């Protein structure tokens, strides 16, 4: 149970950090493609840092896989939004959306894990 709470907390923290860092390095009017690439790169670097810090507490793969999706896709989405000034005008709003995005990704990975988990081959003795 504690690990599950930790997974969601880690996802929301990474979502918030990614959203705020992307907000800081992109700006309205920036070429959207460039903003998306910059956001993706920033998100990937952040996921490695956050993943390294949290994996002793939550497990390597349980941290790394959702974190990589949050970093990569979150960075792209937030970069796209911020280059177009398309919502979340304040930093608090951007952080809130980042947290929601992180939690949704963690939930999605958990659902996918539940689908994939289990025996995939069993030919007996």
């Amino acid at each position, binding site marked *: 149970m504690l690990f599950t709470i930790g997974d969601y907390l880690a996802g929301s923290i990474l979502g918030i950090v990614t959203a705020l860092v992307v907000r800081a390095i992109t700006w309205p009017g920036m070429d959207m493609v460039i903003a998306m690439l910059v956001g993706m790169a920033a998100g990937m670097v952040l996921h490695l840092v956050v993943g390294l810090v949290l994996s002793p507490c939550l497990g390597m793969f349980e941290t790394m*896989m959702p974190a990589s999706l949050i970093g990569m896709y979150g960075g792209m989405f937030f970069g796209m939004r911020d280059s177009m000034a398309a919502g979340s005008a304040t930093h608090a709003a951007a952080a809130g959306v980042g947290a929601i995005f992180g939690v949704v990704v963690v939930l999605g990975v958990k659902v996918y894990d539940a689908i994939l988990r289990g025996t995939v081959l069993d030919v007996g003795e």
Partner: protein
Amino acid sequence: MTDRVTQEKWDAASRTFDLFTFADDRRLGPHKRRLFQKIRGATLMVAAGTGNDFKFFPPNLQLIAIDISPRMLERAARKAAAYQGSIDLREMDVCNLDFPAATFDTVATVCTFCSVPRPVVGLRELHRVLKPGGQILMFEHVRSAIGPFGILLDLMTPLSSRLGPDLNRDTVGHVQKAGFRLRRIENVYLDIVKMIEAVKDAAA
């Protein structure tokens, strides 16, 4: 001959190994315990590490545990002493095993073939030292077959392999290439962390 580069890498990793596997031990431990319930007969554990996985073995086994890293084995000695059974620790490279053919009934591995530089060579050595009809029980992480996850693991491997394991190994394929017959595969986390059971056919 021992692979010195790999040995030095894991000697260095031994200092922080227990820290980085703390949560994995708790989250994945029950699965390892379930897998190792299937151990029977003379048993070889490959890549003992710091001995974190000894506690997942059933009690009263008499097994040999090897690792390429003497620093890892130093840390494993205390945990081997605490095990309710007998664990004989030896420094050895899985690609060059100092055992006669057909010595063991079971080989057990935990996150080993993400790190062995020549995995098929190592698995062939394990195939050699297993008795006909012997089994290999593996708890391993592999490359995901799911597009985005697989690509991410590919991207992270150049970094991870400097400090520890590769993240994009096709260990199931390597097991088959080494001559084993797959008996059972179970996904433990996504399609990345797996329990793999394979056997050396009696005719082999």
